[in-house]
């Protein structure tokens, strides 16, 4: 089976390519990038599909390095199949999934189970992130060596901040010895516990207990300090505050090995959205103030924030159709992430090339997975984007089981219209 992607604007930051050209895919690999690949050359055997991608953007498959697929344990919220279907519908060829399943992904058998389910689903590539501590309880490290061997790509207790700095230190050192990243959910629970939304004027008006930005900043600063001290590296998950952006920026310029991601909602929404108490605006970290949103955008623009990941966190109505205070944290993201990110391009904050770096090249580098490139010989993971497609978010049409999306009804511009994973078209729309 061969695919010929004709006439698209190919943007591959890993090779500094940005030009209208053709791509030939053979046996699941990129076999040729060349202008006007002619048919006889491409198709001596006749087993060829040709796609006219004029006016479309063709990029290395997008990677969402922070998702929750809920399986095993919470299959009523999402399964690896529905989650990876949502991924390809959103333009993602690879996703990494967090360990807060039941049982927790803290041992080889769960990691292998996730990979097996992903193979059976045959949609996106799924990369399990293993728990940093057994049971994600912050006490004893998991078996990093065995988990890496089983296929885990990173370690994180995401959702449960590692409050014990000694444990975090050892995790950083041990993971580094395997050339694996630690992903840190930064939250000082002494400052955040009981909080339901960003602390500020809006929380004061709504009478909801606040989560101050400093609860995040303090832990970002701690983890940067630990990364410097141990001469290792750390990846900061879902940056939401101006303070975190500044801390990462200063650390980077001091030569400390820290990377960071943010999520689309942190540069799209502010805590103003909480008026009305809709639980679809409740997540951790919480939506922040407009100064934080501006700082996130600046961090994206100047390169402080390396990656955009959706923190896709599907929940059912059981967790969300309740009083705000009782509602679970988290929103879906896979099927809205790219169009929300494309707004950054529209606003002139990022070029499309920079956006592709943050949604493909950089996540691949952080997770050290062989993705994020259209180099000849690499896996044919390709995302085709229609920058001008106007569409309206309708959660009823989501592939994800989660309907907890704050953007339902939004009119968005730009969309993935074809998602190719390993040379196989897994998603396509006209």
């Amino acid at each position, binding site marked *: 089976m061969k695919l010929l992607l004709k006439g698209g604007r190919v943007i591959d930051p890993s090779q500094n390519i940005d030009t209208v050209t053709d791509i030939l895919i053979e046996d699941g690999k990129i076999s040729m990038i060349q202008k006007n690949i002619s048919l006889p050359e491409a198709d001596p055997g006749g087993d060829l599909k040709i796609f006219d991608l004029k006016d479309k953007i063709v990029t290395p498959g997008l990677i969402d390095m922070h998702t929750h697929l809920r399986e095993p344990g919470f299959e009523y919220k999402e399964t690896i199949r529905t989650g990876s279907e949502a991924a390809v519908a959103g333009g993602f060829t690879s996703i990494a999934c967090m360990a807060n399943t039941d049982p927790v992904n803290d041992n080889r058998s769960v990691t292998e189970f996730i990979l097996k389910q992903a193979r059976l689903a045959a949609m996106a590539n799924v990369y399990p992130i293993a728990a940093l501590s057994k049971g994600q309880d912050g006490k004893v490290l998991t078996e990093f060596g065995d988990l890496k061997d089983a296929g885990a790509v990173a370690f994180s207790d995401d959702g449960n901040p590692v409050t014990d700095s000694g444990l975090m230190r050892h995790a950083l050192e041990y993971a580094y010895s395997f050339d694996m990243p630690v992903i840190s959910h930064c939250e000082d629970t002494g400052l955040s516990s009981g909080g339901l939304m960003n*602390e*500020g*004027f809006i*929380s*004061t*008006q*709504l*009478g*909801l*207990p*606040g989560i*101050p930005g400093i609860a995040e900043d303090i832990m970002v600063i701690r983890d940067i300090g630990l990364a410097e001290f141990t001469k290792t590296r750390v990846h900061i998950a879902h940056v939401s505050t101006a303070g975190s952006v500044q801390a990462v920026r200063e650390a980077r310029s001091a030569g400390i090995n820290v990377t960071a991601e943010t999520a689309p909602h942190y540069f799209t929404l502010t805590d103003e959205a909480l008026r*009305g*108490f809709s639980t679809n605006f409740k997540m951790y970290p919480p939506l922040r103030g407009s100064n934080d949103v501006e700082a996130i955008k600046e961090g994206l623009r100047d390169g402080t924030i390396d990656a955009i990941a959706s923190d896709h966190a599907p929940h059912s109505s059981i967790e969300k*159709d*309740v*009083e*705000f*205070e*009782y509602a679970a944290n988290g929103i879906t993201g896979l099927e809205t992430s790219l169009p929300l990110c494309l707004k950054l391009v529209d606003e002139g904050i990022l070029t499309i090339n920079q956006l592709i770096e943050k949604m493909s090249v950089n996540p691949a580098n952080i997770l050290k997975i062989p993705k994020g490139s259209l180099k000849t010989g690499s896996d044919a993971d390709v995302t085709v984007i229609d920058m001008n497609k106007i569409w309206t978010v309708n959660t009823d049409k989501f592939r994800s089981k989660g309907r907890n999306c704050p953007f339902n009804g939004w009119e968005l511009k730009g969309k993935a219209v074809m998602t190719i994973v390993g040379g196989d078209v897994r998603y396509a729309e006209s």
Partner: protein
Amino acid sequence: MGAQAGLFTSGWRLRNTMDLSKKDMLGIIDLPKDEIDLILDTAESFKEISTRTIKKVPTLRGKTVITLFFEASTRTRTSFEIAAKRLSADTINISASTSSVVKGETLIDTARNLESMNPDIIIIRHSAAGAAHILAGLLKQSIINAGDGAHEHPTQALLDMLTIREKKGTIEGLRIAIVGDIAHSRVARSNIYGLTKMGADVAVCGPAMMMPRDIDQMGVSVYYKMEDAIKDADVVMMLRIQLERQGKNLFPSLREYANLFSLNRDNIRLAKDDVIVMHPGPINRGVEITPEIADGPHSVILEQVTNGVAVRMALLYLLSGGRK
């Protein structure tokens, strides 16, 4: 009874040139000033009913009012029930301990079940901020928020404003101090919205850890010393301190709190001579207010309770009438 009801026949309705703009009463934040005036004016005219021998008019005959209380309350629930009964509405009281909530039914399911029985007004109190908003968005009935978490308690603010207006003639230009646990107080929030809209100069005061962030943006001045806050005040509104909050990093001890933030014979002299002292109740005697102040000549605490019935009658009436 026919003659007494005359005040509330269609003739009276004709003089009432406006209605409330919303089907619900969720908070004071989005209640326009002229609607506050309307409610207070209506309440004033209703007060007289409660002084009659036969304290009942047929205004809401055939209407069904449900009070749905997920949080303990004696005063507010009773006040709503009396208000509804004096207007001849049928009242049903549901409290969390007797409802199916204990069996694990969700708020939304409870609400939909109640809706299916066709009540006209549902009054809800809940410990979670925004609970009344959930019902308002879901049900066609009028929802009255009788207190949601630390968010709003609009009828308390309305009865407080009625009391102040009665005692002082106007609210505009008054210096009003609200003292206590501002962070956790829905009474404080609703009053801040209402009193600032009516033109009062509002000061809030309490221990620093009970002062919510950026509260000055609500248009109030912030004090941490009782003496500064109540100096030259026309009105001092003391808030109930939740005793269970001590020892949770919110304040060290009741003794310290009482030393610093109770209204007593000494510090009340700093306020104006004709200061009125208010409290939403229930009071902790000897904690935020000393007995001689609570029972003293400046106290209007029990008049607040009386006005509570009138304000709630007015609200039930206006919410029913405005939706004919």
